[in-house]
């Protein structure tokens, strides 16, 4: 069995990009549908059976819309930032493993696009790069709402990124690797990390909601106060790219949570990627559930919660894990 040649990775990359895009499209449908049911509405039900063609209708609408931009906007940054957001969101899904790997035609085909030894750091690096898109995009569009949205994005992302990184420290110490594939293999040996790292999962998930700008931490785009935050001045497919990036970030974050805490593709029976997809779906459902249930935090509450609650809890969790890993 020979190792994976480069062209298999390429095929997998094309496949996964398309699958993630489809997942994103139907995530928007699912969100509107579930959110509607939770609020005693139907959600989209006109385009196709159960409104299943709604994402396609939305795409056509966004593509055909006028690509308006403000006269004072800084062209290159204004036009380039949605692309950066979309790129980093799609690229970060590359390192997330979704299957154990199979032997196909004499080649070993792994259930991941690429297995890098620093996968986790790569993910956080790409995530930080993606934040630039939100910050610079809002700043370059020369509008007070966009600027305020960008400022909030900047402050919120910086605050919660710290807690997010600290919360996975325990997993890294227990898995003794930064490669997500190794972490999943380790969990297959020792059991899922959700047990010993439950606090880590909680902190990771809460900080992750804040990182992806989802309610109740959607201050950067708080539509009731800031119109739409950093993408106020964006329309058409440029806005579409921003929202694509946001949803794909959400999917990636759920995938990361599944990989780090719930054993990735691991499950009682060998169902291939199905376990991963099921767990991913559960996380995405919780995202929607949160949006339907909780009101938005006030800005000072958000900051206080991030720095005074999440960060200490994550730090203590990491320290205790470190002591236990060394002691045991």
């Amino acid at each position, binding site marked *: 069995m020979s190792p994976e040649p480069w062209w298999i990775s390429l095929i997998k990359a094309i496949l996964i990009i398309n699958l993630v895009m489809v997942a994103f499209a139907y995530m928007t449908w699912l969100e509107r549908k*579930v959110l*509607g*049911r*939770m*609020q*005693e*509405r*139907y959600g989209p039900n006109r385009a196709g059976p159960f409104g299943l063609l709604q994402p396609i209708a939305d795409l056509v609408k966004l593509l055909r819309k006028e690509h308006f931009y403000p006269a004072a906007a800084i062209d290159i940054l204004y036009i380039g930032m949605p692309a950066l957001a979309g790129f980093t969101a799609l690229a970060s899904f590359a390192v997330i493993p979704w299957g154990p790997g199979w032997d196909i035609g004499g080649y070993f085909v792994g259930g991941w696009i690429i297995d890098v030894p620093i996968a986790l750091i790569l993910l956080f690096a790409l995530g930080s790069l993606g934040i630039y898109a939100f910050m610079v995009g809002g700043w370059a569009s020369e509008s007070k709402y966009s600027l305020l949205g960008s400022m909030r994005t900047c402050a919120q992302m910086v605050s919660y990124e710290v807690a997010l990184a600290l919360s996975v420290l325990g997993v890294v110490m227990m898995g003794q690797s930064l490669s997500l594939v190794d972490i999943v293999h380790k969990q297959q040996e020792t059991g899922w990390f959700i047990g010993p790292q439950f606090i880590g999962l909680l902190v990771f998930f809460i900080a992750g909601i804040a990182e992806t700008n989802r309610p109740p931490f959607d201050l950067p785009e708080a539509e009731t106060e800031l119109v739409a935050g950093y993408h106020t001045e964006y329309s058409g497919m440029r806005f579409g790219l921003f929202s694509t990036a946001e949803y794909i970030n959400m999917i990636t974050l759920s995938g990361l949570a599944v990989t780090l805490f719930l054993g990735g593709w691991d499950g009682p029976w060998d169902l291939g990627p199905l376990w991963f997809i099921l767990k991913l779906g559960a996380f995405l459902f919780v995202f929607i*559930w949160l949006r*339907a*249930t*909780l009101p938005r935090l006030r800005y000072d509450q958000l900051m206080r919660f991030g720095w005074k609650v999440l960060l200490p809890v994550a730090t203590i969790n990491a320290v205790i894990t470190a002591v236990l890993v060394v002691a045991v």
Partner: protein
Amino acid sequence: MSPQPVETLKGFAVTFRKIFGKPITQQYPEYKRPLYPRFRGRHRLWRHENGLEKCVGCSLCAAACPADCIRVVAAENTPVNRVSAGERYARIYEINLSRCIFCGYCELACPFDAITLEHEFELSEYSRDDLIYTKDMLLAEPIKRVPVADRDLYDTPTPYYKEAS
């Protein structure tokens, strides 16, 4: 405000339970809510039973209109051309429905009950000019432009206040 974990979890339970409930949304083009008898929709001009118009072109409706959307040009009735029961009749009677606020003051001002506000409210047009209703359009039975194929199947159900009587 101190954290209230139990209440928060109760909130989550409520939203989760609602998924399995029935939505209360009324599906508009198929189902239409019954209108109240005094609902103020599109105007209608009326005729006497002998076919003469009730409107005598006095322009009181235009004077009462706060949105200034009614235009009346009166002309004398002649024995050859008798249009209304009075001395004069409205040669031109136009209502610009894109300006109208459906307040019903025209109805109150009219001394002959010639104009009333009826129950028609589906007044969308592709062009603003099409919203200027002329006298012929206001005198005629409203054209129902119901966006469903089978009108009998999906028309407004009988309101409860009509069922009772």
